[in-house]
């Protein structure tokens, strides 16, 4: 830096007009200002990386739970509750792991780094809501989901499940249900589609009460009506063939499953 000060001995490619010394101090102000800020940017990156790494064991459990719950499509209805319970038990293993994440985050700065946690929280919410629907035929409220996961529901030290994450996660669970409804029919289970349609209907009505703005939650909500339609289409198909256990006489339902269904269409539709 000192060499530029002697303007007399400058080579010819140096800019002739400006004074070298002054230019150096001005440029060094850039070094001073940007050097330190880029260093703190890098430090922040390291922290983000550490948080992502601390999330990995939780994400592993979440994936295992998802694949456990996925078996629900291929087993007989009787085992659904057992699978859902196994999923919940598996998810409970994440409870002690959150501290590994929250100790990395400076006090009061959870939302500064929540981008690394949010997607997993939403997936876990989805799994819990799905499993609890199978077991209890109910929508798990936010505090229930938070309790299952072992996180906070509102601000406190540690990981927080926000209303937004919860509401998005639940929609994720609903998105899975049309598929379950279809597969239940394939497996000869005609009651589950009814349960699903009634549940999706209730959840849709509930979400309709929210004043949503144009964001992710709103877009996810928009997907609900298609799920509702798919679920109702299954009911229609069943009813058309006299397989709807509610509209037909319940005791006759198992019979119509084995006999030719078309004879009943007129009475039940």
């Amino acid at each position: 830096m000192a060499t530029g000060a002697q303007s007399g001995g400058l080579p010819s490619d140096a800019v002739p007009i400006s004074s070298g010394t002054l230019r150096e101090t001005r440029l060094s102000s850039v070094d001073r200002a940007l050097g330190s800020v880029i260093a703190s940017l890098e430090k922040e990156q390291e922290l983000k990386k550490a948080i992502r790494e601390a999330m990995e064991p939780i994400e592993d459990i979440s994936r295992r739970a998802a694949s456990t719950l996925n078996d629900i499509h291929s087993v007989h209805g009787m085992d659904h509750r057992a699978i859902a319970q196994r999923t919940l038990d598996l998810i409970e293993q994440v409870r002690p792991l959150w501290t590994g994440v929250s100790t990395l985050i400076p006090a009061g700065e959870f939302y500064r780094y929540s981008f690394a946690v949010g997607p997993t929280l939403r997936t876990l919410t989805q799994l819990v809501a799905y499993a609890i629907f199978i077991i209890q035929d109910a929508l798990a409220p936010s505090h229930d989901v938070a309790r299952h996961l072992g996180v906070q529901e509102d601000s406190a030290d540690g990981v927080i499940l926000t209303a937004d994450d919860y509401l998005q996660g639940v929609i994720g669970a609903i998105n899975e249900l049309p598929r379950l409804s279809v597969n239940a029919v394939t497996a000869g289970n005609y009651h589950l589609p009814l349960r699903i349609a009634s549940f999706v209907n209730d959840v849709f009505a509930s979400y309709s009460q929210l004043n949503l703005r144009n964001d992710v939650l709103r877009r996810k909500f928009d997907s609900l009506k298609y799920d509702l339609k798919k679920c109702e289409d299954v009911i229609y198909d069943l009813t058309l063939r006299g397989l709807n256990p509610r509209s037909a006489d319940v005791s006759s339902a198992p019979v119509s499953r084995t006999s030719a269904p078309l004879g009943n269409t007129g009475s039940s539709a």
Partner: protein
Amino acid sequence: MADVIMEAAPIAEAGPSRRDQLVDTFTSYRQQLDLENERRERLIILSRSITQQSKKVIFHLHRCATLPGTPAFDKNIQTARTMVQKIVESFAQVSAELRDTSDAESYWRWYRNISPGLEEFIESISFLHYLEHRQLITCQEIQNTLKEEGPDDTLVVVTPDDFILGISDLTGELMRFATNALSTGDAETPQEICAFVRNIKTYFDGIPTHHLRQLSKKQEETTRSLMKIEKLCYETQLRSIEYDGRRDVLAQMSRRDVEGYRDQPIEV
């Protein structure tokens, strides 16, 4: 077949009561979401107001920036300082909105909504700083202006991201300033700004894209600005050889030369 009947049972009982229950829980979710949306809206409005005020500072500075050392220049800077002080008062409002006394986590939950305004503010105050000192303001210096009277009362935190993105916008202002300076016959300032902006760009080029995604687009803009400044310098250099020792002629030529650039709309 037994399971089919077993599963049928909950429908009849749980149906209506479940919906009533859901109405209750979702009413509370709605209240929560409504409060959050209202706060977000208020912050966005504040952010926009800060953006507008900051743009005014920048326009104001451009008006008299090319005459350093004159009383008019000093008065201009003084007025800009007063305008900046007004913006800091807006940040006090922002601070109150961001800090919920009942929620220790609220600040970082909402601060993203203020980022556009904060970046514009950084752009304006760094331009002001450059005109006064011909140096790049530091993140800490900006942080110091965003404080209340008390010793440790930070209004808004200037993150490295905010600072870098704001400074990235500064390069566009410097390009305009260099162009205007040349039009008044000042051949030195463009050279100086050229080296200054080039140095900033070099630093920003070293930042990996995934560290700061918004930067790469801004870097394209910075590159364009730098090329304009370099072209100005190139032309001045050629002229200075042709008209060596005839500064007055040179100044006239420059004025004509930059007219093309000047007609471009100023986008801040």
